């Protein structure tokens, strides 16, 4: 999973996945629609990336209802939090190294 050269996490190569993690790390819980709005992506596109993040164990899905409408919310897992922190640290190191 980790790129051996610089410690950057391959999962976060994608801007949408990176955005999802950035949002989850500062929000306790967030709904699919809020994510969609903030990232400005289509349903299908967002769903694909969310599935891949879930498969990696980085986020947890909670399915609920508001009335009859489904309301799916997401929270970050400890693994996800650690992976994201490591990724930021790696980014930091790279930026420092370039200087």
């Amino acid at each position, binding site marked *: 999973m980790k790129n051996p050269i610089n410690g950057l996490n391959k999962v976060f190569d994608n801007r949408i996945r990176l955005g999802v993690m950035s949002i989850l790390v500062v929000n306790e819980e967030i709904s699919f629609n809020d994510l969609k709005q903030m990232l400005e992506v289509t349903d299908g596109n967002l769903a694909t990336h969310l599935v891949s993040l879930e498969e990696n164990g980085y986020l947890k899905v909670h399915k609920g209802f508001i009335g009859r409408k489904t309301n799916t919310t997401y929270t970050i897992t400890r693994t996800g939090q650690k992976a994201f922190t490591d990724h930021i640290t790696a980014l930091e190191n790279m*930026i420092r190294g370039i200087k």
Partner: protein
Amino acid sequence: MVMEKTWRYGKNGITLRLKVLFMSFQNQPTEELKDVRHIREMMERSSRFLSLSGLSGVSAGVFALAGAFYTRHYIFPAYYNDYNRTGYDSVSFDWLRMTLLWVASLVFFLALASAFYFTWRRSRKQGSSLWNITSRRLFWNTAIPIAAGACFIIGMLWHNEWRFVAPASLMFYGLALVNASKYTLTDIRYLGLSEIALGLLNMFWIGYGLYFWAFGFGILHILYGIIMWVKYERKS
């Protein structure tokens, strides 16, 4: 299925945000920095309501000043004319109370509506929605202290205690703004602190509530509105 305990937002989130904030200030156009900027933008966009318009403050302040002016130059003279001629009489005192209540409600409604309008206009211009997780959070965290203050003031009026209405409204409003500042532009915090200080001062100049109101809800709103507009909106 992931059967893991979820991570709770807390101190770590804040540390991480500071780190990202610091990194995104360094100015090399590398891929890594673009990533960091993206992370920072998403963190900001998802945790604070940033479309609040300075013009909302200006318009609310203008309505407050208009209300205060009308009260000072039309309602008060009308009442004191009667008072000086015939002395205290409960009919004209009731008229005064009802008129003041109506003017205050009208000012509150117009100020709120105009504030909504300018913020709605700005969020539309930015292409963001007015009703999302950040605006909801901002709304509830402002509404709770305001509602508590409103109940408190209605309680005071119920007991025929009108002297502390102006200081109490300034202080509760100030507390609401200090609370709101965690969920929107941080400048609001200083406006809130100013309102609190003004409310405290007003406690010792009880007869001048209208002037404190005009200053707190009128002048300060306009002043902060202009500062925020210059700071965030003029460029775009």
